[in-house]
């Protein structure tokens, strides 16, 4: 496994993911407190600068990977894998796109493809799991595209548990086809 502390930037599929640093946590706090983002989060209370600093102290380690998404030179959102358990080979991904101009584009898919490559190939995880609000239709469609499965007895719950196995992800022809297309595009002028 690569030395994780040295990983500052991931690049591919036409985007860059920059590991979150102290100087960017206020930007993330601003995004995170915006009602358009807050409404889809499990924690929906206002986040103060002190809370944000305490949170960053808790996540600035090799069990949590938070990245600012950069697309065409602009910082447009946040993506992460948190609570990485190297023994169980699991982690919980999350993403939000703050920039409205990017919502109709495929930036979220690009960022997720890049982060998933990182999860499977660098962190050597076997399972990604998550919790998603049933009301978040956009997230549900995206999760279905990537092959996440809703765990048993979750269908009627507002907060549903989902998971994606590495083997299933690596065999997902639809996702592989899109990944290859986006790689092909990356090489175009």
């Amino acid at each position, binding site marked *: 496994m690569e030395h994780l502390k040295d990983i500052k930037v991931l690049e591919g599929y036409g985007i860059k993911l920059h590991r979150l640093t102290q100087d960017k946590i206020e930007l993330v706090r601003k995004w995170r407190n915006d009602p358009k983002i807050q409404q889809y989060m499990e924690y929906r209370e206002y986040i103060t600068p002190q809370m944000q600093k305490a949170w960053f102290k808790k996540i600035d380690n090799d069990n949590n990977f938070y990245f600012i998404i950069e697309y065409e030179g602009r910082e447009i959102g946040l993506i992460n894998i948190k609570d990485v358990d190297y023994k169980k080979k699991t982690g919980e991904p999350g993403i939000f796109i703050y920039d409205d101009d990017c919502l109709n584009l495929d930036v979220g*898919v690009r960022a997720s493809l890049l982060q998933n490559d990182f999860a499977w190939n660098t962190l050597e995880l076997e399972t990604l799991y998550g919790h998603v609000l049933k009301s978040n239709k956009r997230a549900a469609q995206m999760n279905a595209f990537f092959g996440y499965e809703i765990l048993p007895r979750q269908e009627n719950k507002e907060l549903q548990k989902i998971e994606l196995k590495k083997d299933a992800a690596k065999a997902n022809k639809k996702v592989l086809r899109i990944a290859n*297309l986006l790689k092909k595009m990356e090489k175009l002028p």
Partner: protein
Amino acid sequence: MNELIAKIAEILEEENLDLTKKFTDYNGWDSLAGLSIIAMLDSDYHKIMKTKEILAFPSIEDFCKSVLEK
């Protein structure tokens, strides 16, 4: 052109496609619909087009003409 229009209508889940509209005028448009169109262009028309380029067309009709002309 009808074949291409039918494929777009299927992706957007829209029975009666108004060709004067833009892709984003339809509720069926999202990033995954965009990727489906990109994949369809690649496999059926051997064209590579980015989502941004697809959305830059003033109407679906202009997009279709461009795909079939190139």
